[in-house]
């Protein structure tokens, strides 16, 4: 294995193993934070495939989380947990393949708005289906305990990071970056842009689908308005951008920073937390376009 890929992969795997001892050495509160951190790592790294690498900024990734959550709620106690996770991932991937083909033909602001519109459309379709079945919220009885869920989410975060690292250094990843920089030029040198984009979109949907299933098991409750909340899509982008959305390790910083800030402030000063998030977002986009990660790299390069 090449060194430039082996070192980050090994580092990520070691960090994951280190995180796996968390339930033995700390209390449920800390494990809960670990669960949240893993959730957002899994989501932002998956989002990165289509939006960071290929430059198609998705403002609708919550659609995949929501569909995974819905699959979990529908199949709860009918299927074993591992099969529910697979089904949730498969459902999200299928959804991405279905909507990806027409959607990935539109670019720039149109794609951003379109993905947002699709996720909202899907939300209201599920709301209406549930209303037609006269179900208001589904409770999941006997969900796995926090420790098991933490291990599953941690594995998803690990998998998501590894996929991002591997793809970034592959020919496929190079093709995606070529599409981001100039799609016409990429096509003239023989990159099959539609297939590259569709594959990246489907890959970036599978893990969020599984994450959605796990989140629903954690809350033991499914409500389409929560599971499809546009806040999730916006938070994914915010975390990725604050950290630096060009490299797979960038979003880690954004996720870590925002999740910890949230733990500190959300309970007592939720409004202050949101104001700080807003200010940070503006500051990073305007003054540090490559995010905390890129900014740190430049600082280190300058002092070295």
């Amino acid at each position: 294995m090449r060194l430039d890929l082996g070192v980050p992969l090994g580092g990520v795997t070691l960090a994951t193993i280190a995180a796996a001892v968390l339930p033995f050495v700390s209390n449920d509160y800390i494990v809960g934070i670990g669960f949240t951190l893993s959730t957002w790592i899994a989501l932002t790294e998956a989002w990165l495939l289509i939006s960071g690498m290929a430059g198609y900024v998705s403002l609708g990734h919550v659609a995949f989380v929501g569909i995974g959550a819905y699959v979990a709620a529908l199949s709860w106690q009918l299927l074993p947990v591992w099969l529910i996770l697979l089904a949730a991932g498969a459902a999200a991937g299928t959804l991405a393949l279905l909507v990806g083909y027409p959607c990935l033909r539109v670019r720039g602001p149109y794609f951003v708005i379109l993905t947002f519109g699709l996720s909202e459309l899907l939300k209201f379709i599920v709301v209406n289906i549930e209303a037609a079945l006269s179900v208001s919220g589904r409770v999941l009885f006997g969900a796995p305990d926090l420790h098991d869920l933490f291990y599953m989410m941690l594995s998803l975060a690990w998998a998501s990071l590894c996929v991002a690292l591997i793809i970034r250094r592959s020919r496929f990843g190079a093709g995606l970056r070529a599409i981001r920089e100039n799609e016409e030029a990429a096509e003239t040198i023989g990159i099959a842009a539609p297939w590259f984009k569709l594959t990246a979109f489907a890959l970036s949907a599978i893990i969020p689908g599984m994450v959605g299933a796990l989140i629903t098991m954690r809350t033991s409750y499914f409500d389409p308005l929560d599971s499809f909340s546009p806040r999730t899509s916006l938070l994914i982008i915010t975390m990725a951008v604050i950290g630096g959305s060009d490299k797979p390790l960038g979003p880690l910083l954004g996720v870590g920073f925002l999740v910890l800030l949230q733990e500190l402030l959300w309970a007592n000063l939720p409004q202050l937390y949101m104001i700080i998030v807003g200010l940070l977002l503006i500051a990073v986009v305007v003054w540090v376009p490559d995010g905390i990660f890129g900014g740190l790299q430049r600082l280190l390069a300058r002092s070295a």
Partner: protein
Amino acid sequence: MSFQLLLAALIAGSIYALVALGLNLIYGTMRLLNVAHGEFLMIGAYVAYWGINLWKISPLLAAPAAIVLTAALGVLLYYSIFRRAMTSRAFVERIEANSLLVFFGVSVILQNVTALLFTADLRGYRYEEELISFGGASLPVNKIMVLIIAGSVCIASVIFFARSTLGLAIKALIQQREAAAIVGIPIARVNLISFCIGFGMAGLAGVLVSMTEQISPFMGFPFTVTAFVVIILGGLGNVLGSLLGGLLLGVLETFGVAFTGPGYRSIMIYGVFIAVLLLRPQGLFGPGRART
């Protein structure tokens, strides 16, 4: 077709047109996706609310104050963030995504500062609610006022963009930025004026909305979404298209809900929105050229 429904559609449509026009102006001239547009509407609504509750000022008199305040906030944003950012290559290269994030930050800040100052409670005031009947329909006076004001501002802006030098300059800038600069249009000043008009219109729309609906710090987001639907219908950057798009959405929403039921409102609106984006991304009324 009932006259009552038609009036309701016109009222909703004229508000949508007003909100979308401002949003489209800012997108058209500077390529900025202003997802904080609804928050400026919310600020306008709070100006009217405090005006009538603290100083017994009629919302009609509060409207100019709301326009000035939101336009001033727009100027502040322009000078503090966008004037500099527009000269940075990294920002301009992905201007749509970057501006979306900046305005998302602005929107979160405005919502939460308002919630800290005035609490997140729903608020409302009663204003001119007596019913007037005519032609088989009956409407409260406040809604008639909304229709007259929003409608005349929309008509005035049609004339402004078709006749006045400034309106033509803005349209020229939207169509061909470089060419507009070459023929001597002062880009920076026209950008700034578009910011003022765009945000000011959001503030005015907020005053009008507060006359008939309850307000809260988080009321803006649905208006932002609706405004985006409207400018997609009318065409991104097509200023007059957003007026027609607003009216069309008002008709679609009002009659659609009347015939199917309120549960289907969002599905219908987003369905039309997605269909237009996929089939005719340049908008329903634009020329056959898609801007990407």
